[in-house]
């Protein structure tokens, strides 16, 4: 695939995403012309791009879609749910066609082609031929002259000419039609007062195909002919051009609408005004002169130069509304440019390379720091600590580069929720919050599937059918929430529904049946709910309101665990369930707390460290201490990792916290904070519990990184067991 095609595919995918978004918005507010124009622009851009890369199957498909959008825009057809669904299907199809192009296949395969023509037939049958049909042009008679227009705000524009706005498609020349011939023919029914040739869409020389047409025309046309006759001039190229005709003395709002529809980036306000024929060249020149003149006439400290638009308004040569529309459009263009200029696209692997290097720098820095401390030279130590601080900043900045907002991932679900709720015959609204929460890009990519699963599950089994909801005294419309926020070094993503909640008893029954728990075993609600994540639990039949899709919740949990995250569920019967996914912010580098046991060093992620206390002697023999009146279970690393030898006289407890649970880790010595680059352990250590990875110390030694979550679970499970045993004996 050559470079242009790659760019086209990437950009078209963005356009498609925008198209989809806009379509979904449009469903909510079908009267909003701005959104409709956004839809049209996206489709148009894709078609134009496809023309440039000469991908005919995309051009021809998108062309029909664009025709429908055009009729929609002209108010010839009305938007409804069916049309939105159809257009969404079309946008999916364009996505598939892009895949075909990206794969380098010359044409879509039979299935895809059949799908395409089915969609086209539906578009053609239901939306292009329906209604006005062949006499479409005359259905909007050139009667503007007779109507009282002043009520629509802004009144009529000065010009008494027709205004014709023409954009030719790329293929007109190749199809043997010359725009010049049509324009000449136009002069047979009237007089061209002013014609502006617009070549803005012509690409740079290398990309420009001499046989494609890139031209458009804005024409001020004096004629007594009616609109239908003018349209007839372009009959032969109707399919290959975009034609807008405004009758003489049109309403200002019509010009405003036209301006926002034109594909060009209007470069200068004056140019636009001339193009639409609202101003003559003389009026514009006058305006321009006024704008440049002041420095000579006035003193240097005179009022700031008035923008051209205001001058024109002041002279009453153009109505404010028109200028506003032009300014807004220009501003949008500028904003877009500015936004584009602020963004740089770089390949992800370059970024990964940078992060790797920063990781190495962190390790090397630690080594320098250690050596400097050993020398005891004050100035050297000071210098290295400064370097250390800078390295830390670089690390943070580098990691920040990889952070992306989760909003985009969330927004994808708008479509999913819409489609699935239609499929299921449920009415479900999606509410998204915390979309600006950032997390590592690699996480965002991997979290999509588990999220999708949770969302589908919630809709399929969580939220009840509308009649059931009404019967239970809830609003018929179900509600699904996606939320994200930061919490002590983790990001938490929640999927919540207001459905029936998990059925505790049925989960218990199922779990017993599957041999996951013993009959009569006493479990807390949380433990029971978490059973749904066990392998082999779901999928077979409909269990309460969960399961189904062939992929079990165990896969969801495994996916999340592979990201060093956890998932938890809470539920209230009759009120809904909430799944909370907790993920670390980044996968690569963490701030660690270095501790020693025997001669080995271990790293505890600093985020999870709450405090450090001395282990008092009298706690020997027990695995919990009294922490300010609270029972704190702990784990002795010395025992856990089976160190030989005597424990030193003084041991320390590092109090750690994870997901609301606290536990202690007993170590020999505390060695302070330490920046850590996580190196993953090999696959053979995969099932070693309690170790999350390894890192290299400044001295070159290896330190293991403790998996705090696993240790806490071990501690609490241990203590709960012990606590429960006496209870059951009693």
């Amino acid at each position, binding site marked *: 695939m050559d470079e242009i095609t790659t760019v086209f595919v990437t950009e078209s995918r963005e356009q498609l995403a925008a198209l989809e978004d806009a379509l979904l918005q449009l469903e909510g507010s079908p009267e909003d012309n701005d959104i409709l124009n956004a839809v049209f622009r996206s489709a148009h851009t894709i078609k134009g791009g496809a023309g440039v890369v000469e991908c005919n199957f995309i051009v021809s498909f998108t062309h029909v879609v664009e025709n429908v959008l055009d009729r929609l825009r002209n108010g010839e057809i009305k938007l409804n749910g069916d049309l939105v669904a159809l257009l969404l299907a079309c946008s999916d199809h364009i996505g598939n066609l892009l895949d075909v192009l990206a794969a380098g296949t010359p044409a879509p395969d039979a299935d895809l082609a059949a799908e395409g023509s089915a969609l086209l037939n539906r578009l053609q049958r239901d939306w292009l031929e329906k209604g006005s049909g062949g006499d479409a042009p005359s259905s909007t008679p050139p009667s503007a002259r007779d109507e009282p227009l002043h009520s629509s705000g802004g009144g009529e524009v000065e010009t008494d000419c027709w205004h014709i706005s023409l954009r030719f498609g790329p293929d007109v*020349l190749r199809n043997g039609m010359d725009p*010049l011939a049509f324009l000449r023919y136009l002069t047979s029914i009237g007089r061209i007062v002013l014609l502006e040739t617009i070549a803005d869409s012509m690409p740079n020389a290398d990309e420009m195909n*001499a*046989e494609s047409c890139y031209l458009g025309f804005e024409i001020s046309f004096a004629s007594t002919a009616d609109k239908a006759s003018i349209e007839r001039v372009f009959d032969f190229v109707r399919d290959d051009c975009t034609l807008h005709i405004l009758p003489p003395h049109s309403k200002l709002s019509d010009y405003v609408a036209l301006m926002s529809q034109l594909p060009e980036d209007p470069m200068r306000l004056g140019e636009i005004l001339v193009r639409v024929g609202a101003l003559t060249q003389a009026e514009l020149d006058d305006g321009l002169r006024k704008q440049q003149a002041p420095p000579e006439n006035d003193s240097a400290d005179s009022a700031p130069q008035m923008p051209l638009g205001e001058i024109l308004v002041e002279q009453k040569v153009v109505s404010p509304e028109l200028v506003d529309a032009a300014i807004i459009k220009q501003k949008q263009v500028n904003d877009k440019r500015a936004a584009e200029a602020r963004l740089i696209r770089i390949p992800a692997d370059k970024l990964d390379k940078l992060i790797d290097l920063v990781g190495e720098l962190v390790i090397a820095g630690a080594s320098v720091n250690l050596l400097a401390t050993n020398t005891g030279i004050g100035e050297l130590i000071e210098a290295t600590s400064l370097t250390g601080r800078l390295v830390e900043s670089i690390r943070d900045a580098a990691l920040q580069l990889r952070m992306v907002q989760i909003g985009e991932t969330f927004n994808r679900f708008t479509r999913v929720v819409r489609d699935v709720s239609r499929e299921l015959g449920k009415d479900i609204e999606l509410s998204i919050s915390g979309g600006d929460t950032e997390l590592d890009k690699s996480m965002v990519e991997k979290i999509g599937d588990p999220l999708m699963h949770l969302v589908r599950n919630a809709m399929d089994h969580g939220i009840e059918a509308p009649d059931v909801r009404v019967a239970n005294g809830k609003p018929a419309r179900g509600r699904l929430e996606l939320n994200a926020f930061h919490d002590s070094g983790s990001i938490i993503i929640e999927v919540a529904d207001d459905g029936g909640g998990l059925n505790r008893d049925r989960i218990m029954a199922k779990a017993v049946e599957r041999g996951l728990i013993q009959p009569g075993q006493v479990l807390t609600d949380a433990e029971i709910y978490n059973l749904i994540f066990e392998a082999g639990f779901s999928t077979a039949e409909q269990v309460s309101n969960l399961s189904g899709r062939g992929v079990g919740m165990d896969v969801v949990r495994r996916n999340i665990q592979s990201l060093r995250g956890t998932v938890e569920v809470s539920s209230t019967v009759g009120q809904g369930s909430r799944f909370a996914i907790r993920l670390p912010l980044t996968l690569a580098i963490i701030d660690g707390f270095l501790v020693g046991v025997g001669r080995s060093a271990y790293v505890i992620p600093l985020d999870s460290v709450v405090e450090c206390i001395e282990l008092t002697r009298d706690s020997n023999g027990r695995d919990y201490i009294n922490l300010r009146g609270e029972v704190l279970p702990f784990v002795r690393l010395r025992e856990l990792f089976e160190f030989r030898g005597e424990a030193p006289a003084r041991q320390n407890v590092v109090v750690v916290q994870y997901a609301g649970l606290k536990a202690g880790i007993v170590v020999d010595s505390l060695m302070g904070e330490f920046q850590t680059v996580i190196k993953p352990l090999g696959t053979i250590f995969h099932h070693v519990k309690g170790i999350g990875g390894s890192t290299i110390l400044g001295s070159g030694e290896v330190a293991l990184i403790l998996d705090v979550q696993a240790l806490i679970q071990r501690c609490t499970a241990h203590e709960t067991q012990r606590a429960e045993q006496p209870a059951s004996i009693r």
Partner: protein
Amino acid sequence: MSDSQSGTRVAIVDDMTIYNASAQKQQLLDALAVHDEFEIDLSAVAEIDTAGIQLLILVKREAGRLGKRAVLVAHSSAVREVVDFFNLAASFGDPMLIPAREG
């Protein structure tokens, strides 16, 4: 089509229509690559269509972009008529009847 290239003048000797557009595009861009300033002699262009006009727009724009000058000279009557029709005389900015050299 051939180009009788004398100094910095490129002559277009064929019709500027869609049939010759690709070749002429190359010819003009080649000239643009070599010269900082050159003239395009249009005296022998008996017919010009939209594709031809597009080429002239392209060359003019490209020259402007590169900080070079491509001057249209000796317009044939066909070219003059179409340039006028498309209202491009002003944006091309070249005198249409008198060759630039003598002016």
